[in-house]
């Protein structure tokens, strides 16, 4: 099994989908000869042709709107938006059309498309390049929202997203693209959408995260272990539909929970996780649930980023508070 990065795992998934399903096509800005701004589609146009890996004009609403039409005819388009902060012009297509067509046509027309979007900060990029606005997407009925944090899941979840009969927003953590490596099968496989992953079992506190934040969650769990605290680590992997059963089961066991998200704090996705836990696990709680989040500020530019992005220090501190309660 090859050891690969998330970027390579995504490229493998796209390559396999193009090779095995003639209805799959990739469209987006600079996805062809350039291989995309993060090189996720590197080499794919060369291997599969310009009809199937299509460079588009610079128009995000157009990309998603065209993908919507393509999907209705039976194609399986995989659209790439360069950064989540550039996806806002496409939100009208997602909210007003992509997410609704199955409902407004009573299953007669469907839009099985994938929109891949790099998200999150940590690479010192320009303004608008570090957004974590996944909560807006998760709040939109009719979209599935998937966030991978490691190469194995990235490949299997992207394959599952392309095979899914409904629209899937596939968020890719920018700063983890090449920072996380692991061995993965070079044969096709699926990681099911809607199932959280228990990365590490533990009995003292449940740490919940997703996407880019998982690297800091893992670091925090290591540090807690050094202090004799056994943290259970859950990678949500899918925000919608949320695997509430796995969360409730874990927190019922540990009695303590820390939810980590890079997005802004107010009405962020962690708030939804907290709400679900208090509905179904309140009487197992031994301490208030902690949220470690980005702030309700503009994501700071390169020199101020460290004040915004949740890090292992903050996660450990939050976990300790739950243990001291």
């Amino acid at each position, binding site marked *: 099994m090859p050891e690969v990065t998330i970027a390579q795992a995504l490229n493998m998934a796209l390559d396999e989908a193009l090779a095995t399903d003639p209805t799959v096509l990739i469209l987006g800005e600079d996805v062809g000869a350039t291989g995309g701004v993060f090189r996720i589609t590197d080499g794919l146009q060369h291997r599969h042709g310009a009809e199937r890996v299509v460079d588009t*004009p610079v128009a995000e609403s157009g990309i998603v709107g*065209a993908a919507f039409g393509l999907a209705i*005819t039976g194609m399986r388009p995989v659209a790439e938006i360069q950064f989540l902060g550039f996806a806002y012009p496409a939100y009208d297509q997602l909210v007003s*059309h992509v997410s609704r067509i199955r409902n407004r*046509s009573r299953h007669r027309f469907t839009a099985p498309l994938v929109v891949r979007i790099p998200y999150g900060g940590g690479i010192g990029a320009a303004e608008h390049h570090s957004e974590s606005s996944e909560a807006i997407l998760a709040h939109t009925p009719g979209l599935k929202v998937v966030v991978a944090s490691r190469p194995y899941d990235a490949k299997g979840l992207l394959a599952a997203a392309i095979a899914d009969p409904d629209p899937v927003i596939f968020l890719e953590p920018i700063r983890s693209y090449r920072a996380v490596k692991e061995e993965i099968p070079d044969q096709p496989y699926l990681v099911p959408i809607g199932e959280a992953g228990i990365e590490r079992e533990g009995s003292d506190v449940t740490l919940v995260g997703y996407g880019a934040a998982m690297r800091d969650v893992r670091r925090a769990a290591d540090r807690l272990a050094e202090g004799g605290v056994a943290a259970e680590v859950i990678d949500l992997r899918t925000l919608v*539909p949320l695997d509430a059963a796995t969360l409730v089961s874990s927190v019922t066991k540990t009695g303590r929970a820390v939810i980590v998200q890079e997005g802004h704090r107010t009405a962020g996705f962690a708030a939804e996780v907290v709400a679900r836990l208090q509905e179904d696990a309140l009487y197992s709680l031994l301490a208030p649930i902690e949220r470690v989040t980005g702030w309700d500020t503009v994501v700071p530019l390169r020199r101020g980023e460290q004040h915004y992005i949740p890090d292992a220090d903050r996660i450990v501190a939050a976990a300790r508070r739950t243990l001291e309660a």
Partner: protein
Amino acid sequence: MPREPLQILAPDGTITAEPPIGIDETRRLYRAMVAGRLYDRKCTALQKQGRLATYAPFQGQEAAQIGAAAVLRPEDWMVATYRDAAAMWLQGYPWLNLILGRTGDERGGQAPDGVNVLPPSITVGAHMIHAVGLAWGERLQGRDRVAMTFFGDGATSEGDFHEAMNFAAVYGTATVFICQNNGWAISLPRERQTVAETIADKAVGYGMPGEYVDGNDLFAMYAVAAAAVDRARRGEGPTLIEALTYRVGPHTTADDPGRYRNQAEADAWAARDPLERVRRYLEKEGAWDAAWQEAIEADEGDLIEAAVAEAEAIAEPGVADVFDFMFADRPSHLDHQIELLQRDRGAGRA
């Protein structure tokens, strides 16, 4: 000199060029325009009785819609708006679905199998790009289906108009853009929507043909739409057609045009009625009489009445109708929300 819209059939029923269709087809399309007019009147009346939600009448635009839609094949795509019922109906979208939709019921959006008409777009402008993706997807799968999209003059101010026109031209998709320039976008007149002399001229900027047509002329609409659809089907790319017409009625039944426009203007356009124009032509050709008019109005009216009765007889939607069409398979979080709804309803009644 200002550009003049292409016209074949003058308001007095005389022709200035050979019509693109024969008498039988003209009679069929005249009858379709009559059906559209009857539907429009029926819906306006039903709304006043509180039996429909807000309704957007299209009186005066029948030739633009029927003339354009008539050139499509049954399997072609149509992406239209809330004011395009006549075009959608001619392409196979039943009156029942249209009426059901206006009663406030999603079941109206389910086109019959084989009818490739999307539910009417309610947001202005975002749907045009869908006709680009549809035509593109058909071509990629080796089919020569065309996608026709309808929109108004107001929609051309949306950024999505630009993106759709540009994508269609860049990829050379078999998309036909039908802009019904009906003079008014709610209260904003055409000349304040854009200062361009015509909307058709905008096509130049995208490198596609732009046609400027008398939208109240069935023959001109048919001829120009047929040429555009043929071009598209041959793989020669998209066309923008501006149909110059007029919204004789209000924007919707909730609108009062008296607040912003002169009734004399509307009256002048009513005199250029697209149905009357074809009727005069047919009469001159000996292909119209009052008895036939009475017969087609009765027959088409009966079909619309039957659709109204059927729509009103359909059982009210249940909880499953709300939850079961979001995804192919209902996910666990929606199961949970149904439980919450049923639990609280039961408790509230106890």
